């Protein structure tokens, strides 16, 4: 099947130097999802790959590939991305699969760099955040739209989802709900839904660094106008997950959000600082950080983001539940909604 796909791709390719399927070499990267294959294609004697080909047969997977194809064309036409991104090369059907071919982006995976660090210092965390969030700020620059408060109210309806997600009769759940309502009321119209171009899955695995530039791949969950805080939350969460894995390999993935924001250590402090900084950059008060954070997590849990498209939000519901429980436990009995 792999050789057939490469041959079919070579037949579609309109480039000066034809791709010879027989002499091309392929790295096969298995994905976490069934019926997804990622093939990295090397032309003969080339030290770097030329193309990345994604193949998928499932309805959801095909939809994600269609979204990525549209996103890559949009990126090519608008040149919005501040660094290298893949260029779409071909999209075609092969047997029962959809095939999306794109150019390979040069660089070393940010995740690979993180995993090779023997120690991760607080200074390194700050520098990494600066690189990743710096790219994000440049990417959304000029494309930010602040929707009216009414839209935030509809987002606040996500808070009512907490009532469905959280267990009834638990003290911590009641406290979390009360705090959320109080926090939303206190912030009032200062809360706005800010939409901007979004990558949708901006974690260290999808960031490549090459000669001082930052390239970003995997645009399957991209959207031209999505709540800007989605990308910020995903980025901070995925980064904390990668770092926590280095420091404590036994940490449950569902506890990473609490680990990222609620601990009293350098990683959590830096993560909270960056979250507040992003809120201010998007025109919201820093004091609303906790309620906006919780609402954003709940938006994921409700499946309202492209990120939950394949997992159905089940994992995020568990993340939200564990986060709210940890959050409730971390605060004194009374007092304003605030992080420790």
């Amino acid at each position, binding site marked *: *099947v*792999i*050789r*057939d*796909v490469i041959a079919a791709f070579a037949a579609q390719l309109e480039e000066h130097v034809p791709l010879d399927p027989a002499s091309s*070499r*392929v*790295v*096969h*990267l*298995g*994905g*976490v*999802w*069934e*019926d*997804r*294959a990622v093939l990295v294609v*090397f032309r003969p*004697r*080339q*030290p*770097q*790959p030329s193309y990345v080909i994604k*193949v*998928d*047969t499932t309805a959801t997977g095909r939809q994600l590939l269609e979204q990525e194809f549209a996103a890559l064309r949009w990126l090519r036409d608008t040149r919005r991305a501040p660094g290298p991104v893949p260029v779409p090369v071909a999209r075609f059907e092969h*047997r*029962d*699969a959809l095939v999306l071919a794109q150019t390979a982006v040069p*660089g*070393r*995976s940010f*995740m*690979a760099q993180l*995993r*090779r*660090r*023997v120690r991760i210092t607080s200074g390194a965390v700050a520098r990494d955040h600066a690189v990743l969030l710096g790219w994000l700020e440049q990417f959304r620059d000029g494309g930010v739209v602040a929707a009216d408060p009414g839209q935030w109210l509809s987002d606040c309806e996500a808070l009512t989802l907490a009532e469905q997600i959280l267990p009834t009769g638990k003290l911590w759940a009641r406290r979390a709900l009360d705090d959320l309502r109080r926090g939303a009321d206190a912030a009032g119209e200062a809360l706005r839904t800010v939409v901007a171009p979004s990558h949708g899955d901006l974690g260290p695995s999808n960031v*490549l660094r090459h000669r001082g530039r930052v390239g970003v791949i995997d645009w399957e969950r991209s959207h031209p106008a999505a709540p800007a805080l989605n990308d910020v939350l995903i980025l901070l969460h995925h980064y904390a997950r990668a770092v926590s894995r280095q420091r404590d390999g036994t940490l449950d993935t569902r506890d990473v959000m609490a680990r990222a924001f609620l601990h009293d250590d350098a990683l959590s402090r830096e993560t909270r600082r960056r979250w507040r900084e992003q809120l201010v950059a998007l025109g919201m008060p820093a004091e609303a950080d906790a309620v906006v954070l919780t609402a954003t997590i709940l938006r994921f849990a409700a499946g309202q983001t492209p990120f939950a498209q394949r997992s159905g939000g089940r994992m995020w519901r568990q993340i939200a539940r564990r986060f709210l429980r940890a959050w409730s436990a971390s605060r004194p009995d009374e007092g304003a909604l605030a992080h420790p």
Partner: protein
Amino acid sequence: MTSGAWNERSLVAWIPMQEGERVAVVGSCPPLVDALARAGAEVWQCQRAAELADGGRRAVDHLMAPDLRAVPDLLRPDVIRHAVRPGGTLLIGTQHRRGRPTGAAAHSTRSLHAALVRCGVGRIDIFAVRQSLSNPRAIVPVDDRILRWYVTTGFLPLSRLESILASGLSVVRPGRVALALFPALMALGEVVGDP
């Protein structure tokens, strides 16, 4: 196309299989059998090399042995010639012998290639596999430039030792030394009949 999910089913994508063809799976590997059946193959599962050499059985179109440890005596000319029709595909997964001997079913790239040639297999491609045979997340051709690319760009260490090793390899431009980071090998070849 059956791939992904980080188990042996990824290997199905490497077999040039048509619907209705007969595929033998040697050893116990339910995800692979399931994936082959879903792809329309007529799957025959067996546990021992002796079953393949049974004279009364028709040769299969393709043979897959995802872990040679389960059938260490598979790579014998009489077994392979008997089991697979000429032109059929053979896919073998094996532990990678890195330096010291680790048992009869472990191979280096050279010994695996030689064993396949002895069995009458041609057009052989050897791949390095991470993280393991049962979890093949990356299947990388054994080619200096591609191994170098993988190890310097996308390789994710699983232990502190691998982190240190990978950092060192990034500096010295590894080539085949990078193979040491792959615990398993996969070979793909075509049975050409008499060697």
